[in-house]
């Protein structure tokens, strides 16, 4: 089941190669990656560097929306990544440093140092409506 779910997320994660290069400090107009969690939270990822490239440190903006399309505020987000085929992680430890707008989170310290398959684990801790605290992890795989 877990692998089915994982494959679903892999499939649902789409890498959109954008023609326009976003400047540092500005994020791409369209998400470069997008994934939906099992509980219906959509994570849209916007990047200062689009298309993604190796060896350049940059920031991402993560926009979280619930199944009704409303932004998810006050979420805690942790991201770890790596290259399963090379048995190592990312060269940096990216962190969310700010919720810049409701449901929009600034993720600083992104850098990839090899071409190939990357796998990111994103752990979300949040509440929607009157529900209890929800903790779930979603995966995104993409190729650089």
């Amino acid at each position, binding site marked *: 089941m877990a692998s089915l779910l994982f494959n679903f997320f892999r499939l649902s994660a789409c890498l959109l190669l954008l023609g326009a290069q976003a400047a540092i400090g500005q994020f791409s107009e369209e998400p470069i990656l997008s994934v939906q969690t099992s509980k219906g939270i959509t994570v849209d990822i916007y990047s200062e560097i689009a298309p993604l490239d*190796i060896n350049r440190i940059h920031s991402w903006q993560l926009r979280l929306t619930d199944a009704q399309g409303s932004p998810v505020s006050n979420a805690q987000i942790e991201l770890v990544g790596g290259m399963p085929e090379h048995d190592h992680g990312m*060269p940096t430890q*990216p962190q969310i440093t700010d919720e810049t707008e409701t449901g929009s989170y600034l993720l600083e310290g992104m850098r990839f*140092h*090899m071409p190939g398959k990357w796998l990111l684990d994103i752990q979300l801790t949040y509440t929607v409506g009157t529900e209890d605290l929800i903790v779930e992890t979603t995966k995104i795989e993409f190729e650089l």
Partner: protein
Amino acid sequence: MTKKLLFPLILCAAAGLAFLVWSYVPLLTDNSWDNTDIRLIKSLSLSALPELAKDPSNSIGDLESAAEFGQALFFDQRLSGNGAVACASCHKPELSFTDGLELATGTAIGPRHTPSLLGISYSPWFYWDGRKDSQWSQALAPLEAGHEHNTDRATVAQLISQDKGYRNRYESIFGPLPGALPNVSATPLGKEAQVEQWDNLATIIQVQINTVFTNVGKALAAYQRKIVPGRSRFDDFADSLSPTSSEETNSILSSAEIAGLSLFIDKGQCASCHNGPLFTNHEFHNTGVMAIRGELPPMARYDGVRIARLDPFNCLGEYSDAQSNECTELRFARDENELVGAQKTPTLRNVSETAPYMHGGQIKTLNEVVRHYNDAPTSMLSHNEAKPLGLRPFEIKQLEAFLMTLTAPLATASKWLSPPE
């Protein structure tokens, strides 16, 4: 009897011949590249090298007058305890800013091999273990290292203050020097007597000395930002490559070199780390290199990142010109166990001129380096990220041939490659 021996002899000869063919006869290779190959090869060309970004921690990094000041300092042997060692003693321009030695030898034999400086300003980290997060901060450490320049910051500040030419250059770039700097040998990192002298100085004097010392590092960095590789035969090949490459393109490199390039990006997995136009990802990897003779295997980047964080001359420190939000590499640097034994990926530009190789100069030739990666031995500490490649002997030769195509005269103007007049 003769007949009995004949069959095994023929069998042995056939097996021997088959082995020789397997080892030394190149396969007939197809020189066509798919779009992914072409994209990757073009990403390695110097044409893809972006303009060198400003170093926010060094506000004078791109000033021509600072580079000229730095050039004078780089070649000045007075910046050493015995008056005989300059930066250029180990970073020799004619050897792509290396020294040809196993271990760097300044005032004494040091613990590490001298790295090349070609394009190193593009790196966010310095030293084999990344213990420094800027080029100016890096430049300070050898001055005070006992086996390198073996001088101290107070003596360096005194030289800048007393040498009329240096004083003028310094003040035109950084503003007035402090009124009276003490004529002592003092540093917090030196021998007991030097540390004692340092501790006896008033804090304001310590800050003044540190400021002059820092600015010396910033000028040295401004100079080193000029040191960039030149276009090689590989770059011409990469730039002219297309899905239907002409014979003209294919004549830029020999068939062995082209086969080596194919191995470099594919079976050899070299481009996993030696990527981008400088053939380095500026990162740290454990590749199972033997420890330096007589030494325990080093913790390398695992310790290096911790040293960088504690360094008063880092990007977040009081001597840096950067805002804290500009110090992203330092703020988000990784420090996990997998960095144990991980050394920095060096550039492969002009690699044929920078032997011997690895952090301790342990491997003498490029052929041996390729064979090391082919074997991927177990790491003495932590794990080797590389896996055995299964290259045949002729493929090792082809990879070596390709690596030789990365050598070219520097793009740096010749006036920077010798002591200033």
